[in-house]
């Protein structure tokens, strides 16, 4: 066992840091650090900048055009990019359908879709949840019936993140209504421009529009767009969710928000003194720093032990990561104090130069707090994760 960072790892960190500080466009950085909303072009621009450097697919093996980095290098990369104020990497292609295609997709599907993920030539979205199937995903009802060399798909997906920008959706459908719920599920790749696909926005309680309903009415999907075998979709879906849950720990996000938090605390005063000097606040910041340190080491341990296919330990990461993200948002709101009360939704969407009603960092604090409630709900609620831990780690 050697628990210190190697010289190579330290050098790698410096290299990523220098790159991110040098190449991340200032306007994007400013939006990210002020918690304003990003748009399609912001994400695409950053992905292309990364690809120009040869880092477009940091989580992929070299044979598919990835960097071939190990888990530790990926973690360093994520944290440094986040700290610099870079947008998160879009997970839908890189971390979700990409790994599934690499493991279960045909060579044809791999060649057709994987290269286009890297520069976001195809924007992917996730067709998993349905109005009646959230935590109980296996109960999904969207039907796909075979008609010659096509499936005809009917149903409704929900919570589809950024579907308003999507070109393609990987979608869980029921191809066999008989027998055990999990057995009748298949995974299809659906062109979002197909006739019968309708995307409707869902406004969230922070006033934002990140998630959507996707209606599928007699959508014809070529059988060739099925991933793997019919009826095996649940296996692929679980494989994908394992990937989602390690990313969902949000370590990079936590580091960035901690920095923002400290800056806010240093620049906001209460009765003539910076809040950062307040001992009650210092205690709480210290506790969060401890939490993040533990989360980071946990993530490294899980990644080193399980590599690409994390097991139920991912649930531990998901639970703690989401709680820490919520705590950070709450502390930021408390530091903003009375200035977190006014909330102008237009400011969130505006260009960074727009003057909000109060101090910049306070303007998004209330919305950020509201928005972060989603972290203990999406990707499997905390309650569901605890159920997984009880069954699979505790053997209960």
């Amino acid at each position, binding site marked *: 066992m050697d628990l210190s960072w190697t010289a190579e790892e330290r050098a790698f960190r410096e290299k990523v840091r220098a790159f991110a500080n040098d190449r991340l466009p200032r306007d994007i950085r400013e939006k990210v650090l002020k918690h304003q909303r990003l748009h399609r072009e912001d994400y695409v621009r950053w992905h292309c900048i990364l690809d120009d450097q040869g880092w477009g697919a940091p989580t992929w093996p070299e044979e598919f055009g990835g960097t071939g980095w190990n888990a530790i290098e990926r973690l360093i990369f994520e944290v440094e990019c986040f700290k610099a104020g870079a947008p998160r990497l879009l997970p839908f292609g890189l971390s979700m359908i990409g790994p599934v295609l690499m493991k279960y997709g045909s060579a044809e599907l791999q060649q057709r879709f994987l290269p286009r993920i890297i520069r976001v030539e195809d924007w992917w979205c996730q067709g998993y*949840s349905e109005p009646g199937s959230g935590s109980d995903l296996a109960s999904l009802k969207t039907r796909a019936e075979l008609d010659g060399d096509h499936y005809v798909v009917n149903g409704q997906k*929900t919570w589809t993140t950024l579907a308003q920008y999507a070109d393609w959706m990987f979608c869980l459908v029921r191809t066999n209504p008989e027998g055990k719920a999990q057995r009748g599920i298949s995974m299809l790749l659906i062109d979002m421009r197909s006739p019968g696909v309708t995307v409707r926005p869902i406004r*969230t309680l922070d006033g934002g529009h990140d998630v959507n309903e996707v209606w599928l009415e007699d959508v014809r999907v070529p059988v060739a767009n099925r991933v793997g075998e019919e009826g095996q979709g649940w296996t692929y879906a679980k494989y994908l969710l394992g990937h989602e849950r390690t990313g969902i720990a949000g370590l990079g996000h936590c580091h960035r928000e901690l920095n923002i938090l400290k800056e806010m605390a240093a620049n906001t005063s*209460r009765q003539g003194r910076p809040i950062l000097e*307040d001992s009650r606040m210092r205690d709480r910041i210290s506790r969060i720093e401890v939490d993040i340190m533990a989360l980071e080491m946990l993530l490294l341990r899980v990644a080193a032990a399980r590599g690409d296919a994390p097991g139920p330990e991912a649930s531990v990461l998901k639970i703690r990561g989401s709680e820490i993200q919520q705590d950070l948002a709450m502390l930021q709101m408390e530091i903003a*104090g009375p200035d977190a009360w*006014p909330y102008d939704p237009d400011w969130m969407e505006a260009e960074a130069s727009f003057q909000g*009603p109060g101090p910049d960092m306070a303007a998004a604090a209330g919305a950020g707090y509201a928005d972060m409630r*989603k972290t203990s*709900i999406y990707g499997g609620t905390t309650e569901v994760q605890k159920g997984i831990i009880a069954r699979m780690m505790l053997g209960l």
Partner: protein
Amino acid sequence: MDFAYTEEQRMLADSLRRLVQDEWGMAARRERAAAATLDDRAWRQLAELGVLGLTISADHGGFGEAPASLVPVHIELGRGLIAEPVIPSGVMSAALIAACGSAAMQQRWLPAIASGEAVMAVAYQEPGRRYETEPSLCKVQPVQDDVLHLSGVKHLVWHGAAAQTWIVSACDVDDEPVLLLVSADAPGVKVLDTPTLDRTRCARIEFDRTPVKADAVLAQGQAARDALATALDWGVAALCAHAAGAMERLLEITIDYLKTRKQFGQPLASFQVLQHRMADMLVAKEMALSMAYVAAAALSEPDEAQRRRMLASAKLEAARAGRFVAQNAVQLHGGMGMTDELEVGDYFKRLTVVDQLFGDTAEQLAVLQALA
């Protein structure tokens, strides 16, 4: 002590519950909040039921109820997430004017507040100074015998744009606080109206040599400090009851959802872990409701230190319990709790901002520390 509602209180609470159910449904409430102007009909209905003149003396056109009556009334208003300026006008401004206004001023303003004809707001916070109540950025100086000029900035004025008259704190040439009545249509006034996280409104108000008649001065020096403190005490008491009412209704909404929503082939309500969570939420609500009674009792507490302790404690508990109940209500609604389509988000946001009004947790802890 007697916790039973009087006959009048029970009737008023019942009428309010009906009114709120009929007129403050989600759609109507949101529409009014988005309009950015006060809905005359809604405001009149509140006035007619006696909400605005609840504790104003009968001599001044009010009902002359004791401070404790804030509890039944504001619980109902909180259940309906009423966003009209009842607290800034009917509670805080009325208490402030009753505390320090001359007989003539009380005669002029209290009946108007009670009838809803006057809408008032208290402008006491200043940018960058969090919850400090001693004015510093707003200043008055005499320019003629009976005219003062007011200059400076106030912000986070709850319903500042809806009010026709503001009670403004400023410091005079001797750096002593002054409370003034300022008309919203006075010269040299600029108002920036902003929506708030919880779908009410607040305003930033800039004064540039705004002329104020000397007889619009409500109080000066210690009398001004005391009167502003009284207004905030009354605001805190009403807000604590409002928060308890919002928690009570949010629990009902969440119970309904758990009974209806099925996952894994059974209603969510059948899962013990969720039942226990609801039990925790109920416990928190009961604590907050109890502290709303403490806050109302504090308004009649003669001992200054004890009054401060009671109000700071009640405010802390309202914020803490409100946050806990709100967070868990969203969590128990799952993805649906994150949408703007259900009411749960509205309750979540109102209960979130309880901490931000009238001094947050850090302020209340500092009050308690100073008293210890």
